């Protein structure tokens, strides 16, 4: 790997008594798509906003593109692209007007029409911002993040409010950024998004990074086993399931159960025996590999969207 685009050491930031970021360190390499995964309030946004130069850290070392975002001001902001959460742009302006407005802030700017095409907003070109759907507004805000053709772009939960189709379109666009050699820092709480897009993922909780690796490695490190999932209305408790043959862990949410097993056939056999003995139905049974969601649940005891 070449010199890192981003280097953070022991970053800390508190809001009053709340330690939002409690000692975070990581590097992001040139051309990498780096994901930050975690529930709301985990400290992802605060970390990213410090990297963007929008917030001032309490302590720690930060270098982005060889500069300190806190002190480099406009020289720094020229070079990075930023997408923020919950920005409601000028409601009475049209899509193409907003893109050219933001373009006018930079010496180097992409063609407005190219960006509109890239984001698939051609038929909304003349629509007012207030008339856009949540997904369209979100795509526009991603377009604005690359209006200066930056080497490094920060996307803070870019797929929020999108339907699954729009989300897949956005993923293709982000893969396009990567193909052009851009470095992308992405926060999300969709594990599928992180699994598909990210070269590496930092899992954050309570202001700390609790795991950092490629999505595949994170899963392998935490789960040598596959999962059996099924629905059963009653009669089977988490404890019962944990006692089954070759089971390493079990998790139940209501009537939906997941059990991780190092030997699927053995576990399956004992599960069926147990179900028959109890007269409990087993519905929608399937076997799957472990996912980042499972990793997150295992590491924090919570699901991502809690």
């Amino acid at each position: 790997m070449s010199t890192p685009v981003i280097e953070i050491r022991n970053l800390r930031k508190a809001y009053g008594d709340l330690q939002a970021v409690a000692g975070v360190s990581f590097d992001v390499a040139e051309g990498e798509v780096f994901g930050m995964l975690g529930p709301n309030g985990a400290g992802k946004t605060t970390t990213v906003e410090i990297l963007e130069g929008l917030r001032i850290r309490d302590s720690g070392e930060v270098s982005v593109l060889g500069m300190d975002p806190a002190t480099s001001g406009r020289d720094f902001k020229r070079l990075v692209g930023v997408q923020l959460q919950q920005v409601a742009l000028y409601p009475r302006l049209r899509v193409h007007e907003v893109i050219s407005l933001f373009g006018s802030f930079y010496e180097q700017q992409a063609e407005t029409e190219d960006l509109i095409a890239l984001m698939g907003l051609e038929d909304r070109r003349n629509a007012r911002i207030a008339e856009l759907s949540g997904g369209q507004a979100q795509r526009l805000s991603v377009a604005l993040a690359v209006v200066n053709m930056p080497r490094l772009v920060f996307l803070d939960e870019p797929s929020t409010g999108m339907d699954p189709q729009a989300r897949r379109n956005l993923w293709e666009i982000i893969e396009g950024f990567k193909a052009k050699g851009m470095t992308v820092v992405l926060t999300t709480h969709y594990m599928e998004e992180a699994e598909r897009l990210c070269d590496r993922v930092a899992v954050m909780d309570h202001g700390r990074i609790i795991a950092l690796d490629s999505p595949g490695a994170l899963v392998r490190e935490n789960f040598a086993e596959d999962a059996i999932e099924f629905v059963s209305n009653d009669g089977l408790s988490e404890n019962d399931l944990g006692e089954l043959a070759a089971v390493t862990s079990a998790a139940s949410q209501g009537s939906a159960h997941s059990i991780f097993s190092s030997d699927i056939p053995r576990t399956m056999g004992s599960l069926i025996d147990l179900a028959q003995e109890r007269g409990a139905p087993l519905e929608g049974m399937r076997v799957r590999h472990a996912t980042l969601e499972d990793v997150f649940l295992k590491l924090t005891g919570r699901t991502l969207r809690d």
Partner: protein
Amino acid sequence: MNAFLPLFRTNYRDFVRDRTALFWTIAFPVLFIGIFGIVLGRGDDGASYEVGLVIEDQSPQAATLGEVLAGFEALALTQGQRDAEIASLADGERRAVVVVPQGFGAAVAAGTPQPLQVHFDPSQQTTQQVVIPVLLRAFEVADRALTQTRPVVTADFRTLQSERLQVIDFIMPGLIAMSVMNGGVFGAIAMVSLRERRVLRRLSATPLPAWALVGADVTFRMVVVLVQTVLLVILAVLIGGVSVKVENLPALAGVAVLGGLAFVAIGFFLGAFAKTEQGFFPIAQVVTFPMLFLSGIFFPLDSMPDWIRPLVSAMPLTYLGDAMRQLMVGGAPVHSMALNLGVLTAFLVVFFGLAVRLFKYE
């Protein structure tokens, strides 16, 4: 900076596509001026006032008095019975009723005057200010006619201004000053709204310098203030019949911009205390509303009690209204022009400084 023009254009688009903003900054002042112009306009310059005359004395002296009164064009005389005329006064059909009592002629002949009775409603301002003085003047003329004396002490009244100002001339510059104030203070709502919708924060992530953002916004507000002022001056002339001092119009535009800048600065300052657009309105109202009534734009300052004077002196609209009135119609100065401009500049500098200090991107 090549972002200035796009930002200015953005302000313009945002403004002209916002019906509420258009209404309050353009339609509302136009309606206001229109209504005041129609109600108070110079149209009734040659108007006369209904006055009842009741003659209960059959003497030639009483008849002479009646003739003198009838000679005043400002008085539309109706002669009638006392009860009927008093009833008409109570109904509002007469401004005043003059009763010539029995024995008036005899008393005049004997040199022991018997007072006329004048009935009127003192709560009516025009009666107080116009009808009564005309009646007094008429009685004076009648007095000389009846006593055959010649006037000895006369006066030739010369006013400081070339024109005699009417209520409409007084009010119109005040209304324009009011529009400048509202355009400035409420114009700051655009910035509050950008902050509320986190656009300011988004802009702070770009290399756009803060001065370009504020500069384009303030420049746009000043264009709005100028358009408002020009439009309202034209309406004041066309509808209100106000005679405007044309040679002062460039200076009037300059004062409008200075006042506009001072009020935009105050608006920005107040904007620092509002998190949302909704929250800004009451704050701006609390500041602007008292100024409407206490800064002499509708009511002359000398009609106000002394204890309220310090408050009046602290209001920027007092100085803007006075400066605009002097320039537009040659109104009598309350303060010198230098003081007016100096105070407005001071408001601009102080509140812009405070606004910059309190400014937050979110």
